[in-house]
């Protein structure tokens, strides 16, 4: 056993006996991921928007029935749940009770107005706290209205363009054909991969990488503790190279990081149903992530005067990078400045790498993000190595 691994295994035993590393490395991220998933899962749009619409049909004609058919089709496609109410008052109390988000009010005279081309207003009444659902209800009614207008226009223009006035029979067949005809466009699905994490995986991964930067500190700041307790000078006097000492602490930090992440990946998969993706890809990301944490906190340890100072500065950096990196909630919108700024943190790349692995992607999908994290590890690692060696030779 080399000097560095002997130092690392001695420290590892100490860290396991003192339970703080276990609390920070495993208990804290696991508990918080569970609570966040519980509370945010029900509140954020990580789950489908559950649309509940009401219908008040005061017209009771075939025309108003055709509107209901449109809604029934949506219900058939699983887009929304539709409930009929006898009156506007009953639908409004359903909104107040939270049973529906909005309702359509078809007042008497709809059938006649649409047959004769007279003006008619479909009313949509929505819950003030569900603007998106209300907007969708409005769009459904508008699309129905556009369909009516298309038929009316098609018939009107046909009549106007006919050389001879159309026979009543023509009109009937035209209106049937016009009602049948396509609206001129259709939506086609676009094939896409999933590059986003579901709730249980997002919170598990976010908390795991957030606390990783605290767990690794237990190893990295070891040099400073040896220095304060006077054991460092004794170690330096021993016939072991200086780099073994730094390497020993780095190995300890690496072991703590890997153990914590491995336990978290397995525990959240089993307990919360997190789906981390292809194991090899996850392993590469985790290794890169642990290395970048060691490198960044290594620089902190090299510049700090005392272990407490290193702990405090390390926590400040860990919290700042974690918040900006989107480990608590996704940061930035579309491709704004904040989402670009987020990418200066290894945390954001770690989350992106896992996102790229989502949806059964092969392990290679994690390589670009792992590469970016490795750049952090190399840059900060070299600086930390240089500074720590200089510190030891003082």
């Amino acid at each position, binding site marked *: 056993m080399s000097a560095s691994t002997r130092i690392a295994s001695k420290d590892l035993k100490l860290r396991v006996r003192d339970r703080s590393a276990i609390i920070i490395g495993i208990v804290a991220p696991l508990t918080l991921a569970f609570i966040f998933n519980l509370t945010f899962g029900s509140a954020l749009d990580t789950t489908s928007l559950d649309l509940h619409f009401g219908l008040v049909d005061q017209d009771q004609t075939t025309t108003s029935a055709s509107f209901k058919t449109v809604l029934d089709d949506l219900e058939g496609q699983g887009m929304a749940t539709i409930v009929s109410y006898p009156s506007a008052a009953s639908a409004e109390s359903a909104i107040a009770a939270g049973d529906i988000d909005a309702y359509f009010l078809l007042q008497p005279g709809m059938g006649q107005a649409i047959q004769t081309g007279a003006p008619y207003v479909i009313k949509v009444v929505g819950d003030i706290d569900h603007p998106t659902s209300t907007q969708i209800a409005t769009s459904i009614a508008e699309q129905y209205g556009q369909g009516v207008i298309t038929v009316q226009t098609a018939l009107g*223009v046909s009549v106007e363009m006919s050389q001879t006035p159309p026979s009543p029979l023509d009109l009937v067949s035209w209106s049937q054909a016009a009602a049948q005809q396509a609206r001129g466009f*259709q939506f*086609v699905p676009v094939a896409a991969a999933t590059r986003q994490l579901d709730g249980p995986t997002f919170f598990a991964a976010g908390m795991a990488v957030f606390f990783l930067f605290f767990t690794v500190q237990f190893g990295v700041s070891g040099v400073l503790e040896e220095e304060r307790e006077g054991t460092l000078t004794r170690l330096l006097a021993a016939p072991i190279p200086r780099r073994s000492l730094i390497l020993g602490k780095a190995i300890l930090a690496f072991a703590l990081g890997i153990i914590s992440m491995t336990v978290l990946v397995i525990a959240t998969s089993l307990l919360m149903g997190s789906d981390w993706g292809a194991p090899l890809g996850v392993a590469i990301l985790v290794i890169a992530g642990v290395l970048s944490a060691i490198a960044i906190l290594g620089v902190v340890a090299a510049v700090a005067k005392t272990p407490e100072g290193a702990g405090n500065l390390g926590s400040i950096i860990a919290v700042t990078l974690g918040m900006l990196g989107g480990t608590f909630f996704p940061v930035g919108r579309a491709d704004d400045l904040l989402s670009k700024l987020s990418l200066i943190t290894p945390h954001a790349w770690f989350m992106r790498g896992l996102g790229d692995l989502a949806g059964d992607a092969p392990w290679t999908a994690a390589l670009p993000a792992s590469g970016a994290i490795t750049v952090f590890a190399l840059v900060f690692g070299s600086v930390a190595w240089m500074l720590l060696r200089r510190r030891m030779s003082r």
Partner: protein
Amino acid sequence: MKVAVIAMTNVRRMLRERSNIFFVFVLPLAIILLIGAQFGGSFEPAVGYHSADDDVIARSIITALGSTDGLDLVSYSSSDDLLKAVERGQVQAGIFLPAGIGASARAGETVDIGFLARPDGFGAQLQSTVGAAVSEVMTPVAAAHFAATQTGGDFDQALALATDYVRSLNTVRVETSAVGEALFPSTLGRFDLGAAQQLVLFVFLTALTGSSALILTRQLGISRRMLSTPTAVGTIVVGEGTGRWATAMVQGLYIAVATLILFRVNWGDPLAAFLVLVAFSAVGAGTGILMGSLFSNDQQAAGVGIVLSLGLAALGGSMVPAELFSPMLQRVAHLTPHAWALDAFAELVRRGGTVADILPELGVLALYAAALFVVASFRLRRVITRV
């Protein structure tokens, strides 16, 4: 007098700790700023689009989409970027307008518009909204094509007629109105909601991290030395409790005043807001003392403190408003003091309440504080007098 000295020493120790400049003074404001930037203001879903060519119909569709309420339209210069943005959840849905829409429409072909929504958001339902905007543009085109086919006439003539016809037509319109009392009224400032949530989170967090100070006081033998002076155990216990409460108050007052000045956050009735802070700080202090007397290792206490303060904050609605929770979870949320404090702030800020309106919330917080202090002082008395 001795109580005040012990308490003030606690506050001074917190202020002298240099990292607290960040955790107590910088971080709360940074998070309020970040959350305000991220979630404050509009909650409109972002929808991306890419148009493969600069066709007149494509342009009309984009204009129609842009004038649709409730959509935050984002343009992407390549379909690949748009695809990735939807896949990564940066936008809720993507609209892919193909090349040659105009030519296809003239030929009477059905135009295929690519639509991609995230499977887990409400992007799929946004298809109706996008469809309504596209219909607006495509209605005359479809009608003209129908008329030209049925009568054997010229398409361009039919299109001109159809465009006029649609304009003159005054048939089916849709009117939207909203009912109910808004949970988050439009007068609520961009930072108002987040400021109250973060105040509650950080007051509790600071009170709990204070437990390590209490552990150090015991470890270093300060409490034993205090006992050797003519100071009663009760005085030390009350002094430590007041100290924890005072540090929590410093944190809370700082956030309230700084957000008031920097972000013009509305805290409602000042006296009532102050009383909520007093009561909630007492709950935090009670919990901090209890933890400080239960643990003997300050690093362990710090770890458990973070879990407790972030976990209770999330459950109590300090991260996502509890109003958005399921009814079951809302009941669970009200087991935490956070939910009661946030209810009180909501009453003050959103409904202009006064002290009289928040008496129930203040009562619950006072009960929490009293119960925690009784248990904590009993426990602390035991640990500092133990030989």
